[in-house]
């Protein structure tokens, strides 16, 4: 389950829906990760571009990895502008046992940060400024250099 929303996420509604969807699936552990826009560096918010075809392929690979551990993953992300203190990202793992869930959410979130084709911009003084200094070159970058 990967869903892209325009603007900030309704965290309570999404967590409730995900929990209820799996309420009879017999998973013993459920770990969501929620990312929220911090008030820092004088920004008014963040904005996101997403390239969905590659995001969906990336997510599908992680669904396979989860399946191999009898786990499942769900993810929601914002597109466009997200204001201060709103949330832009929720990732979650459900698994029968806690160790798998604790390790999987960490690996999944870290690979998301390093690989998912999403670009972040600071909203500042009416401008949309690419956050190059906080961004990570995807593995294999520089092929055409």
């Amino acid at each position, binding site marked *: 389950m990967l869903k892209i929303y325009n603007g900030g996420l309704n965290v309570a509604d999404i967590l409730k829906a995900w929990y209820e969807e799996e309420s009879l699936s017999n998973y013993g552990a459920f770990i969501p990760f929620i990312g929220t826009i911090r008030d820092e560096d004088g920004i008014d918010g963040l904005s996101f571009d997403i390239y969905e075809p590659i995001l969906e392929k990336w997510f599908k690979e992680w669904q396979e990895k989860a399946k191999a551990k009898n786990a499942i993953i769900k993810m929601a992300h914002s597109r466009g502008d997200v204001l201060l203190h709103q949330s832009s990202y929720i990732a979650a793992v459900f698994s029968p046992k806690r160790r798998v869930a604790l390790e999987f959410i960490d690996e999944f979130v870290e690979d998301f940060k390093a690989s998912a084709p999403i670009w972040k911009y600071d909203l500042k003084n009416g401008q949309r400024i690419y956050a190059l200094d906080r961004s990570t070159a995807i593995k294999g970058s520089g*092929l055409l250099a």
Partner: protein
Amino acid sequence: MIRVEFLGPIQKDALELEINNLSELATILQETPEMREWLENSAIAVNDTLVSTLDFPLKDGDKVSMLPPVCGG
């Protein structure tokens, strides 16, 4: 014809090129001044799959995408 798309913050319209592999694309983009800052830090996908070799053959109708550094979350 190969379509080349520039994603996210790269401010450049898509190109339609007659090329046979990524090496030829590299040569063209290395000669494009505004691309220099992106070549080092961008990954390349062909038909939405990331690729890791310049030998990658391209056929008519393929789509090449250039992905600059990412930061989701």
